[in-house]
């Protein structure tokens, strides 16, 4: 990757974030999947189907192979100060007021407490965060253009305006902190990585877990022994 360097990517949020901030590589892969024929469009990836091939969708940050995994050179999301925390409710119910549209034989009593006709009032945790940052290693110019063009919202419930990004900035750094960062106590883990002998001996700030290390992170085929920053 030409002109690749250490980067600090910042999303300045103007609306509360619903759920957790995404991994930068998954965010970019999802955005680019709609345009790239090599990969499946993001919305067609299903946990019941085989996972799409790793690295099929080009993104402007570097990927490196660790064992069987192709891991993006970007840190886990780092949230700025949480100014307020709250809960919003997402409601849904069957619109029985439109019963006149139903066919004669489809008019009957609807259960609203069970089955697929159940009414919802689901709580979602929201946090008012001024910015979310990622350390990355990649091409600054293309990354900034990609983010500005394709990513207006992050987190959950983007379709109803949560996690709205006011502005993206990508700053060049002299060092690459995408996976590890030095500290006086040892090497600090900056992103979720597969557990293995490739980890530094003096690694600090991590816990062991079981999960994914590359997009789609939630897919069962991506699961392995991992280390997670904490």
């Amino acid at each position: 990757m030409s002109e690749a360097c250490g980067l600090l990517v910042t999303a300045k949020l103007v609306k509360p974030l619903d759920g957790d901030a995404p991994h930068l590589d998954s965010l970019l892969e999802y955005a680019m999947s709609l345009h790239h024929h090599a990969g499946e469009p993001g919305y067609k990836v299903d946990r019941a189907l085989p996972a799409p091939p790793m690295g099929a969708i080009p993104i402007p940050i570097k990927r490196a192979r660790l064992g069987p995994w192709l891991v993006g050179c970007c840190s886990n999301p780092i949230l700025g100060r949480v100014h307020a925390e709250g809960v919003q409710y997402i409601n849904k119910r069957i619109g029985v007021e439109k019963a006149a549209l139903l066919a004669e034989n489809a008019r009957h009593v609807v259960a609203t407490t069970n089955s697929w006709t159940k009414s919802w009032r689901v709580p979602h945790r929201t946090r008012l965060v001024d910015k979310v940052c990622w350390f990355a290693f990649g091409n600054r110019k293309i990354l900034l253009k990609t983010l500005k063009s394709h990513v207006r919202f992050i987190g959950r419930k983007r379709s109803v305006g949560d996690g709205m990004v006011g502005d993206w900035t990508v700053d060049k750094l002299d060092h690459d902190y995408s996976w590890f960062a030095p500290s006086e106590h040892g090497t600090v883990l900056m992103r979720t990585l597969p557990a293995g002998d490739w980890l530094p001996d003096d690694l600090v700030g991590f816990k062991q877990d079981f999960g994914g290390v590359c997009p789609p992170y939630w897919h069962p085929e991506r699961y392995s022994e991992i280390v997670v920053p904490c």
Partner: protein
Amino acid sequence: MSKSYTILCHAEALSPITHMSGSSGNESIVAREAVVTPRGVAMIPCLSGNAIRHRCVRDPGMQWLVDAYGLKGKLTLKHLNFLFHGGNLTDGGGREDTRRIADFQRLWPLGRLLGGCLPDQILAGSLQVWRGTMACEENHPYLASVLPGETLGSRRLRASETFITGYQYIRADAVKTKTDLASGKEPCRVEGTTTAGYNAFMEGLAPLIGDIDAATLPQSAPGKKSEEWWVETPYVPWPQLDAIIPKGVAKVSDRKSNLMIFAGQAITRGAAFLLGFTVPHSSELELGALLWSLQLWQAAGGTVGGQAARGHGRLGLSILDFGEDVPGLIDAYKDYAMSVKDEAVAWLEAAFATKAKEPKPAKPKKGEAA
């Protein structure tokens, strides 16, 4: 050719807005969102993107399609749920029918925008609806960042609390207001505490109930231990009943009614909101579907939130110029929707067609080889 659009709209409250988030005590509270201000975090009234998405886009847009396609009175509950509420995933997955997705996106431009869920498949939507943001002092930095150029400039805005007002209504009770209409329609229970009162009441009641024997009425007569009594009268007009009720017993017309006061917060008329719609990689037909839905919503009163029946929640919408021919886009969408009517209806029916169950092989009888 697809293109990404951002449509910004100015929405002015034409009546009190009661888009509520819950209640505190017995008072309804308007929905608010946390906003960072120089003086700390403030809770500012807002319109949820979820409400805008449904009330302003999905509901009017789908209602028009149902009417235009002649589907009224022909839908199943699952059709209704899919078109107006996004549907539910109810069957086992493991399959993605790409032809069905492609056909849906071609035949239902509004569906391509909003997405939905078939029983066995999720259909992604592309529309991103912004939260409705109040034009107020606390939101100035946000508005300045999303409005084009110098639209806002250094214009001063009022603090959000100056737009908060209240309402109070009373739900009346016919016991108080329509006694003459209600009387003679239902039985009434009369209670007393003295034998003398009981005797006087029964004596007065007898001529009012005609052929009915007063002794056969549901009642508890006073006894030796207690003089308390009650009688459940049949259909006697309340004014006549009041006339024979002895002293010390509450008259029917004096009984406690269920009069109920209900109150809450409201956003005052004249408050302004910024609404936004981001349509990534959209065709002109999808854009037309969005604009037509907004126009239909406005034509039908343009309400958000609750209490529209009492005149609340009306918003006057004006789309800020985004460089496209709005009437042309709408006409193109309407023409297209009608040109694919039969195909679209056929798609809907096929998507929800009941799958024939494969017959299970019969179990071998005892003694027969499997």
